[in-house]
C-alpha cells in the first residue's frame, strides 16, 4: 500500500513541478548552475569510468577468444556493441544515480530539514518548480554525457586491445564498423533521455518529501540511490523490449 502511495505522490509531484513557473531570468541562472553541478561536474568521473570500462570489455573479449577460427575483429565488434548498447547509457546512469542522485536528495533534503522549502512556500514560490525543474532541464544534456561515454569507452577498448597486444588497430577498427546498425545509437540516446528524467526526479522526490533531521537526510540519500537504480533497471528492460524486442 505504501508503495502505491509513493507512486501516487511521485506522479503528483511531477505534475506540480510544471505549475506556476518561476520567472525566466531566475530560472535561467538556476538551469546554468545545475548544468554546471550535474553535467559538467560529472564529466571527470564518467570519462574515467568509461575509459577503463571499454578497456576491460576489450581485454575480456580477447581472453575469451581461444578458437583461431574466430576473427580478431570480434574484439572491436564486442566492445562497440557492449559500450553503445549497455555500458554507456545504463552503467553510466547507475554511476550518475549514485553521484548526482545522492547530491540531489541530500541538497533538497537539507533544505527541507532547515525549513528553506517552507520559506519558499510561505513567499508564494512553487518550491517544486524552483528546485526540481532546473535539474530536469539540466539533465536533458545527459545524452551528450552518454555520447562522450561511448566515445571514450571505445577509445579505451582500442588502447587496451592494441597496446595490450590482443589485436591490431586495423582488426579493431574493422570490428567497430562491422554490421553497424545506426538505430542502436538512437536506442541508446532514447534510453539516456528517459534515464535523465529518472535521475533528476526520483532523488528529488526522496529529498523533497523526507521527514526528520540530519540522520534522515543520509538515509534518504541511500534509499534514493536504491530506488533510482531499481527504476533504471526496470525501465532499461522495458525500453529494450519496446525498442529492440
Amino acid at each position, binding site marked *: 500500500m505504501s508503495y502505491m502511495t509513493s507512486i501516487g505522490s511521485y506522479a503528483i509531484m511531477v505534475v506540480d513541478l510544471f505549475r*506556476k513557473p*518561476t*520567472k525566466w531570468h*531566475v530560472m535561467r541562472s538556476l538551469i546554468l548552475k545545475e548544468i554546471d553541478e550535474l553535467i559538467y561536474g560529472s564529466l571527470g568521473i564518467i570519462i574515467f569510468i568509461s575509459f577503463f570500462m571499454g578497456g576491460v570489455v576489450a581485454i575480456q573479449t580477447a581472453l575469451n577468444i581461444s578458437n583461431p577460427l574466430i576473427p580478431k575483429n570480434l574484439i572491436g565488434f564486442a566492445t562497440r556493441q557492449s559500450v553503445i548498447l549497455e555500458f554507456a547509457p545504463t552503467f553510466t546512469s547507475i554511476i550518475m544515480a549514485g553521484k548526482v542522485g545522492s547530491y540531489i536528495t541530500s541538497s533538497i533534503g*537539507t533544505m527541507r530539514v*532547515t*525549513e*528553506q522549502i*517552507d*520559506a519558499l*512556500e*510561505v*513567499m*508564494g*514560490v512553487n518550491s517544486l518548480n524552483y528546485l526540481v525543474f532546473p535539474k530536469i532541464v539540466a539533465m536533458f544534456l545527459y545524452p551528450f554525457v552518454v555520447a562522450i561515454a561511448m566515445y571514450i569507452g571505445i577509445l579505451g577498448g582500442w588502447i587496451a586491445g592494441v597496446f595490450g597486444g590482443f589485436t591490431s588497430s586495423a582488426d579493431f577498427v574493422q570490428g567497430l564498423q562491422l554490421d553497424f546498425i545506426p538505430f542502436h545509437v538512437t536506442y541508446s540516446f532514447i534510453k539516456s533521455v528517459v534515464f535523465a528524467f529518472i535521475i533528476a526526479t526520483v532523488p528529488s522526490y526522496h529529498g523533497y518529501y523526507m521527514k526528520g533531521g540530519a540522520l534522515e537526510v543520509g538515509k534518504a540519500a541511500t534509499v534514493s540511490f536504491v530506488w533510482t537504480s531499481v527504476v533504471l533497471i526496470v525501465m532499461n528492460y522495458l525500453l529494450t523490449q519496446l525498442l529492440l524486442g
Partner: protein
Amino acid sequence: MIEVRDLHKSFGKSEVLKGISTTFEKGKTNLIIGQSGSGKTVFMKCMLGLITPDEGHICYEGQDYSEMTLKEKRNLRQEMGMVFQGSALFDSMTVEGNVMFPLDMFTQQSRSEMQDRVDFVLKRVNLVDAHKKYPAEISGGMQKRVAIARAIVMNPKYLFCDEPNSGLDPKTAILIDNLIQEITREYNITTVINTHDMNSVMEIGEKIVFLKDGWKAWEGSNKDIFRTDNEAVTNFVYSSELFKKVRQMYIEERN
C-alpha cells in the same frame, strides 16, 4: 488583522488543535505561548497556509483564507513575512542575495532599485557590512536579523516569527525582540510570534494567547499576565523562582 475561528487540526488520531478562536490585532506584537507540543507551530503553519486545517476559518482583513482563489492565496502570501526558528536562510546565497530574493521573484524592479531596498532593510536591522557574506559565515543573531530583513523587504502586512530568539544569548534576544516590536509599530503590521521565552512575554507581549494541549487556555496582555489566577498560565509562566519573585514584586507594587 487576523481572525481565527474554531480551528481544528488532527494528525491521524492525535488532535493537535481543538477549536481555537482568537484575533491578532494590527500594529501589535501578538504572542502565542505554550509548552512544547501544545500546538503552537501547527497553529502558525495553519495561518501561513503550510498546513490545511480540518475545520474552522482563518480570516485576513475579513477575507476567509479557505474561500480565496489560488491567485488570491498567492497574492496574500506575498503580503506575509516569516522568520523561521532556524532562520531558514538559503545557504547558497549571500546575505544580500537572501534579502533580494523576494524582490527578484515577485517585483519588476530594476537592479539598482532592488539594491537600494536591500541596503535600506539591512540598515534597518543594523546589518551594514555583511552584504557579501554567506549565512554560514555570520553569527546566529546576525542570521536572525537577515531573516527579519528578508521578511520585511516586501513591506508585508503580516509578520510571523517562530521562536525568533531561540538559541540566542539574552542580550541578542532582547535586541531581536525590540527590533520586531519597532518594525511592527513603524510599519503598522500584524505580527504573530511563537515563543516560550518569558522575557519576550514580559517585554513585548501586547497580546498573548496561551495554548495548552491544543486548547486556548487564556488570552490577555503582558500586564494581565501578572494579575491572572488562571492556574495553567501561572504554572507555565511562573515556573521559575525568578519570575515568581517578579510577579510578587509587581503585585506588591500595585497594592
